[in-house]
């Protein structure tokens, strides 16, 4: 509308030349230009370069010479034949599904609880969630490392006091299953605030008269949630599940820093493996191929969620 009025003023005064009008037409392109350059140059170009790198042999020598050696699909053949890679992919998928499902279930329970508590308690829980949300990931990793310390960690003390077993001098990271369990706990704890607050905001939108009507018709609490609340919230569940999957599949900091920047191969997820192959053993081509596989898996997962979301939107 501003444009229309501007055009009116321009034509009415009649003193504007064609070049002025042309520059008006080019103005929006000039405005978005810098963003396009930055995003294209620093995100778009590297993405293309990643694909190109995955088709090269690119080691330390090539790094110094700044040119790779074209090997076609050899890097992909190498990782597909590598038993460790299979193990890593399976571990990543299990790790991601554990993190995502725990995050969604616990967040939903807390969000439902928030509907029932008194306003004061709701304020307290909300503040706690915001505090956890705001704390930088590296800071939280350091805290959990201290709490799970084998010697003076508060968790070992509490578990022993609660008679859940003898956890004195128990090192959680000796056994990778336990160690990954701790990492899942750290990731889920950090993810709960965002997901809970999003689901709670969605719950507030569920029309209460529909829920009441179901209640009058004799639906129990579980039925009311499963048949009335959950379907209304489906778009929100799809979005938070999709985002959580993208984030948890790429988890790096929690694993890498909790294990003092030297995770053993028992702890490799696809992100760590790609990092190791490239920066640990300077096989940038192999590392890039692993990263390409990671992006492809994520694209498939995201497309699934997008299709589901579109379906929901069509029904609604």
């Amino acid at each position, binding site marked *: 509308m501003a444009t229309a009025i501007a055009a009116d003023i321009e034509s009415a005064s009649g003193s504007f030349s064609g070049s002025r009008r042309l520059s008006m037409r080019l103005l929006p392109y000039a405005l978005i230009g810098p963003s396009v350059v930055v*995003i294209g140059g620093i*995100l778009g170009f590297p993405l293309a370069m990643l694909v190109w790198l995955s088709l090269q042999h690119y080691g330390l020598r090539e790094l110094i010479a700044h040119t790779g050696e074209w090997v076609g699909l050899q890097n992909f053949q190498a990782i597909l034949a590598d038993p460790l890679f299979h193990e890593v992919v399976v571990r990543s998928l299990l790790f991601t599904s554990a993190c995502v499902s725990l995050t969604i279930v616990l967040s939903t329970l807390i969000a439902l609880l928030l509907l029932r508590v008194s306003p004061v308690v709701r304020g307290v829980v909300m503040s706690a969630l915001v505090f956890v949300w705001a704390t930088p990931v590296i800071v939280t990793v350091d805290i959990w490392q201290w709490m799970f310390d084998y010697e003076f960690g508060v968790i070992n003390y509490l578990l022993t006091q609660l008679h859940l077993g003898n956890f004195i001098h128990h090192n959680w990271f000796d056994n990778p299953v336990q160690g990954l369990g701790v990492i899942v706990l750290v990731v889920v*704890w950090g993810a709960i605030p965002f997901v809970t607050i999003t689901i709670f905001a969605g719950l507030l939108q569920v029309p209460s008269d529909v829920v009441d009507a179901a209640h009058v018709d004799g639906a129990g609490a579980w039925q009311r949630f499963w048949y009335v609340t959950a379907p209304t919230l489906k778009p929100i569940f799809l979005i938070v599940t999709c985002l959580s999957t993208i984030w948890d599949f790429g988890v790096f900091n929690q694993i890498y820093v909790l294990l003092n920047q030297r995770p053993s191969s028992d702890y490799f997820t696809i992100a760590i493996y790609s990092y190791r192959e490239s920066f640990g053993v300077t096989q940038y081509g192999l590392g890039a191929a692993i990263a390409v596989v990671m992006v492809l898996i994520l694209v498939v997962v995201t497309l699934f969620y997008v299709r589901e979301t579109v379906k929901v939107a069509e029904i609604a």
Partner: protein
Amino acid sequence: MIAPGTAQGVLAGRSRSATAGRVRADLWHRTRQWLFDAIGLAVAAVMLFPIYWMVATAFKPGRDILTLTPKWFPAPITLQNFQDAIARPFFLDDVRNSLVIVGVMLVLALTIAFFAAVGTARFGFRGRTAFLVMIIGVQMVPLIALIIPLYLMLDAVGQVDSLAGVIAVYLALVLPFMVWTLRGFVANIPAELEEAGMIDGCSRVGAFLRITFPLVGPGLVATAIFGFIQAWNEYIIAYVLLSSPGNQTLTVWLASFTTNHGPQWGPLMAGATLTGLPVVAFFLILQRYLAGGLTAGAVKG
């Protein structure tokens, strides 16, 4: 036919049992409410405990930290851990690096994002939709996958281990979200306000600068805080790109603490508290900005 008297008796009886029922329901209701509140407080306590434990440890003297039976409250309180953390090699260097990186990046990002926000919110042009789709789509790419090409790219132009390289990457990292959010803020300010200014004799640019720009202020603050938090918390890019200890950022310093110094939990928790503090403070401000309706009531109808 029921006689009036009988009907009254029935009514009275009903109301008596109804009162008893209501008392019972009330009691049940209150017990249930109390139960929910108790669970809610327990959830809050469990979520907050790690953060409490960090702050409590940071204020404890060393002998109270390394105890087999934990001391739940920091008494006596000491600031020794904070002094130790600050006196550690490279702490102050890395604070300065973090501030420089975040500061320069924010100035650039806000300027560039604001231009793009105005361009997409105020003008219709060919390629606008494509641009907006790119802004959303690019946020789906996991950063961890781009580290290898980013490293090689910056290495080719000699910007590895320089703050400029990290600033460039962070700029691209925060820009899509910033453009998207700022676009919303600009679009929310009715163009009618600008038009009114132009009718009153402002030039187009003047109307924009005098009317729209001040109203976008809160939006700029909110996006700036978002960018601050993103960049201040980032770890992996800074870790890969910045190799010399004097060039690193605060998160890299913090992450390598245990590896380089052994587990000295007191100073580590003090350093962690200092790193988290500005973020928590800004986050609380951000909440308020995002909650308020910004131009509510500026134009009626």
